[in-house]
């Protein structure tokens, strides 16, 4: 019998190599992918999130855990797809046009993947048309917009307006974030949610998906 606790510990400790090895071992022993995700990986990431909230963990630990989770998920994803399992949601994420900063966006993308979402990362300096294309092509239900600069924040509003004009605003919930972004600004530009950190972004995305 494989030591499944090792997988939990590896994700919690951000040890990608061990996480991948433990996943391979578990799969070889016939443990189902859903059991690994539900009983070990997601609880480990939830624990990571709570350690982050109480400032025991910081962004680097969060990121290492997300990478460990992602390493395991890469092994499991083809098996899940073959079994017809659905992701928690389909997310299109990018830093808005004119803004080249992508660290925060990368972190949110990693955490969402770790949280079981399918994530299409469009990168940085993304034009509104690219968001629209991706929403249509990937049947996304969440759009995440990031901006680090006050000068590029208006591009969030432009992107949301473009999604409306393209007729796809109704099919997605829009989350925004980034250093200068505030909850008030999010409301002003017509976003559905704002998160000030990557860990909370996962909870927000889950809530928005539940709300439909």
């Amino acid at each position: 019998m494989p030591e499944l606790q090792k997988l939990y510990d590896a994700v919690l400790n951000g040890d990608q190599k061990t996480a991948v090895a433990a996943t391979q071992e578990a799969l070889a022993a016939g443990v189902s992918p859903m059991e690994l995700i539900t009983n070990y990986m997601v609880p480990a990431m939830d624990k990571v999130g709570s350690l982050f909230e109480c400032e025991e963990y910081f962004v680097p630990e969060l990121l290492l855990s997300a990478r460990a989770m992602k390493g395991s998920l890469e092994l499991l994803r083809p098996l899940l797809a073959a079994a017809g399992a659905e992701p928690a949601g389909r997310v299109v994420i990018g830093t808005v046009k004119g803004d080249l900063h992508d660290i925060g966006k990368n972190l949110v993308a990693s955490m969402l993947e770790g949280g079981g979402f399918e994530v299409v990362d469009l990168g940085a300096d993304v034009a509104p048309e690219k968001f629209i294309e991706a929403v249509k092509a990937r049947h996304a239900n969440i759009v995440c917009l990031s901006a680090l600069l006050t000068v590029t924040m208006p591009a969030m509003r432009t992107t949301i307006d473009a999604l409306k004009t393209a007729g796809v605003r109704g099919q997605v919930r829009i989350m925004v974030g980034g250093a200068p972004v505030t909850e008030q600004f999010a409301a002003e530009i017509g976003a559905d949610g704002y998160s000030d950190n990557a860990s909370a972004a996962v909870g927000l995305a889950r809530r928005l998906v539940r709300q439909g």
Partner: protein
Amino acid sequence: MEPRYYLDLAAAGLRMPIGADLVLHEQDDPASILLDAGALGRVVETAARRYRTPLAFPLMDLRLEKADLLEFLGVPDAEADSYHFPAPPSKDVLERVLGSAARPFSRRIRANQGAVRYIAEKTDLAPVGMLIGPFSLMTKLVADPIAPVAMAGAGVTAAEDEGVRLVERCLELALATVLRSARAQMEAGAKAMIVCEPAANIVYISPRQRRSGSAILERFVLGPNRALKALLDEHGVDLIFHDCGELDTDMVREFAVELKPAVMSLGSSRTLWEDAEVVPKDIVLFGNLPTKTFYSDAAMPAGEVRRRTVEIVGRMKACGHPHICGSECDVLHVAESAQTIRDKVEVMLEA
């Protein structure tokens, strides 16, 4: 500058934003000014005159050194901002960069050096140079620097992991690039240098790792910046250390004690009168009003700017630490909010 120069400015109650970007965007063609040393110098001079400061703070353009390095390595200027090294730069690349300090600079950075020269030769203002810090430059050369830096901090070596090798080699490139830029600005007449290390913060450098004894801050931030400080000291140029990233108190203390800047400029996430307890009194604290939110009347109404200005000036006076009240970073022009930003800067200066 004389050792008491900044202390005297603080004692005289100087207040100032880093405001050259506001002036730049009042001009007809800001993009062309960025390539014109004389015009850029006049923008910097106008900002200093408008805000009644003897310190000619330049534009805080953290893209210059990266573009200069990448031009030498054959990356087109249009791609420089978004370029990341896909793999660790080879030893050959490192040697080429280290061995070519005398090569010409790229056009944009030359204009900035020329602006420093303009201030030094044509005005009575104190010419201040500007550099991105070596660690922050490294983070711009790598797509995903946080995880490999954390792995390095946990003891993973460059031989064991390509990501660690990538950040280590890019840090070497970054330091060489920054030192070269510093030399050129000092040659142009800079008497002080703002070194901007916004990436040296708790997002990149884990407090958990540091608490467990990792030397990550020393290895990635303090060491390279100490080399830079030594170069500035050799030339009698003052260090103005700027970090508007999110810091913990230990980082503030380390930056102050280890780098010994003349002025330390911190972001609005810090409470300056508390930081004053860990910063030696011969280091002037600068800032740290939340100018990044000045664009929004909802998030930062003028009345709140006034309240915060009065509070920080009063508290810093009460704690007896030398302080120049100002912006937490450069005050960026936002087209849709240009007037409200300018108005709030005036509130900050007058309150």
